[in-house]
């Protein structure tokens, strides 16, 4: 039995640092506002969301056919394609590609999939130096942490944290937290690794185009292009849900990806890898790792439409105030709350409760995943399997009785206004009520809505 991730408890570690929480909240909300400005700039935005959703649903419902078309095209382009049923197979394929060629270093761009597969933990004990070259991902690697956000992996850290970490790991001045200095130091530390012998390059994949066998990678740093264009071997790890049918579909998805995530019209680099440079090798690893199981789940397969933009995280009030690490998994935020239970329901049964069900995630999702509805459905599944924590189950039973009876409800509400004023804090903020932690109750109104309505609207005007 795997150990349940206690989201509320993990979040309390983050909430103990008010400066971090306040910055995190503001930074992510700023990304949300930038996303809104971009969306408003395109009159066709909502139509693009329909199209993106439709293309993904079509592809997923014909996925075997598109994977096959992609593989045939890639092989025709001189790429070697591998099939990994799970994380272990993926990591073993990578290791044999490297060891058979005497490679000792892997320079790579950011990939949620290689994090999901815990690839570094597999390669490093076997003598491979793995160099994450994205600044945020490198920070997380040096700190032995998962990424806390899928687009900005170290967004939960402040400059002083990075200064301390770099001072400890790459020899910078720990007292110098100037951001230009820190970024420049990482550049100088990382770039020599691209140039060395016995070094292979690796990228993830944002979109895999079936008709041409092309892998598309989006970065702002250009580190995927460095990883793929200097070493003699390029390995791309690809989740099967990344397939899209046509090149012209990129005219929908590339327009939406960075607008949704960072609020910029495009990433600085959008790179299309179709065929190896002469004299070099290109290998694609297609990874299932639970995706086909999820595809077979009637209520939950639409989560496979996700293009990993991070918009649902930026807008989520729970994520913004609890930090990505509190989700205990590679995937955090609202999308993590619906993806993780498909991997391990027992372990991640608390995550669907880390939501207010406000639906904000659903309303910003560029591929129209019904995230908040899936969160609700997971709660039903978890309750039916008695995976709900005892206290939550008891409180919800009480709430259920209360809400089912209008008389009982009204009597309770009428007395609650006074009760809220009189109740001592140890009752409201007791350990059973995780929502009471780190929150103050608003003042109760002087009159209930029902009383107000009867007073003001009783006589038709």
């Amino acid at each position, binding site marked *: 039995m795997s150990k349940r991730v206690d989201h509320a408890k993990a979040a309390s570690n983050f909430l103990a640092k008010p400066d971090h929480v306040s910055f995190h909240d503001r930074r992510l909300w700023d990304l949300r506002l930038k996303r809104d400005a971009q969306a408003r700039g395109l009159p066709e935005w909502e139509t693009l969301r329909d199209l993106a959703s439709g293309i993904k649903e*079509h592809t997923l*419902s014909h996925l075997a056919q598109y994977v096959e078309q992609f593989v045939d095209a890639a092989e025709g382009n001189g790429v070697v394609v591998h*099939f990994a*049923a799970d994380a272990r197979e993926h990591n073993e394929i990578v290791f044999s590609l490297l060891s058979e060629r005497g490679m000792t270093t892997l320079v790579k761009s950011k990939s949620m999939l290689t994090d999901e597969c815990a690839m570094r933990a597999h390669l490093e004990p076997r003598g491979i130096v793995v160099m994450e070259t994205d600044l945020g991902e490198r920070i997380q690697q040096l700190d032995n942490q998962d990424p806390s956000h899928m687009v900005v992996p170290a967004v939960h850290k402040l400059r002083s944290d990075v200064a301390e970490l770099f001072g400890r790991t790459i020899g910078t001045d720990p007292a110098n937290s100037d951001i230009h200095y820190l*970024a420049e130091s990482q550049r100088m530390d990382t770039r020599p690794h*691209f140039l060395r012998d016995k070094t292979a390059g690796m990228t993830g994949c944002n979109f895999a185009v079936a008709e041409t066998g092309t892998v598309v990678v989006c970065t702002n740093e*250009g580190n995927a292009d460095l990883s793929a264009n200097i070493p003699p071997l390029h390995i791309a790890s690809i989740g099967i849900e990344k397939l899209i049918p046509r090149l012209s579909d990129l005219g929908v998805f590339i327009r939406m990806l960075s607008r949704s995530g960072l609020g910029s*019209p495009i990433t600085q*680099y959008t790179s299309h890898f179709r065929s190896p440079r002469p004299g070099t090798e290109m290998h694609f690893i297609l990874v299932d790792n639970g995706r086909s199981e999820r595809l077979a789940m009637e209520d939950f*397969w639409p989560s496979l439409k996700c293009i990993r933009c991070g918009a649902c995280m930026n807008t989520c009030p729970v994520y913004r105030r609890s930090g990505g690490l509190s989700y205990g998994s590679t995937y955090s935020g609202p999308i993590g709350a619906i993806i993780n239970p498909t991997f391990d329901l027992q372990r991640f049964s608390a995550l669907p409760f880390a939501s207010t069900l406000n639906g904000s995630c659903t309303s910003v999702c560029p591929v129209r995943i019904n995230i908040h509805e899936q969160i609700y459905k997971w709660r039903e599944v978890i309750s039916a399997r008695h995976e709900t924590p005892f206290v939550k189950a008891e409180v919800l039973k009480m709430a259920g009785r209360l809400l089912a009876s209008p008389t009982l409800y009204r009597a309770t509400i009428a007395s609650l206004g006074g009760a809220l004023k009189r109740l001592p804090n140890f009752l409201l903020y007791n350990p059973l009520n995780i929502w009471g932690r780190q929150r103050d109750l608003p003042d109760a109104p002087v009159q209930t809505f029902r009383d107000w309505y009867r007073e003001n609207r009783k006589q038709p005007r």
Partner: protein
Amino acid sequence: MTSRDVFLAKIRKAQPSPVSLPDVPLFATPAGDRASRFATALALMGGTCVTLQGLGEVRTWVADRFGSDAVIASAVRGIDGNRAINYRTLPASLEDVAVGIVRARFGVAETGSVWFSEDEYVVNAIGYLVQHLVVLLDPMRIEDGLQEAYRRPDFRTARYAALVTGPSATADIEGIMIRGAQGVRSLTVALVP
């Protein structure tokens, strides 16, 4: 390791009921001159746009901007750098180059992007490993948007194709924008009619 057939069979068995593929229409494009929309979009992404008349002006502009001692590699016919490159040049050897000069096949007004393949780059690493990139672009070769760009045949034949929009950048520490993360520190597009 899992075979192709086993891998595909498992997916096929899991597929939900078929959903049809939507047609993607061409949306209307904002009004205005493409070259000026391109320059505005590029500025937002941290790039610079200048208009120069002919290769002579490009040579003078590069010398003024970077000095006569700078190590310059050019992938553009008619502009000689002081570091020769060809298709056999080892990518890593460009590490000490200060300025790369390349010609884009086309640009995209919507985003301020320029398009390269291995044909334009000669050595792909020139786009990333040098410190500063100067891009020549014919202002008549600017597409309205990404939707038009992705309908071009160029993506089907290039081994490698990149839409490059401004210089390498990161905002991974406290959202502060840094130009020159891993790749080029600056990118200038010279519109050369």
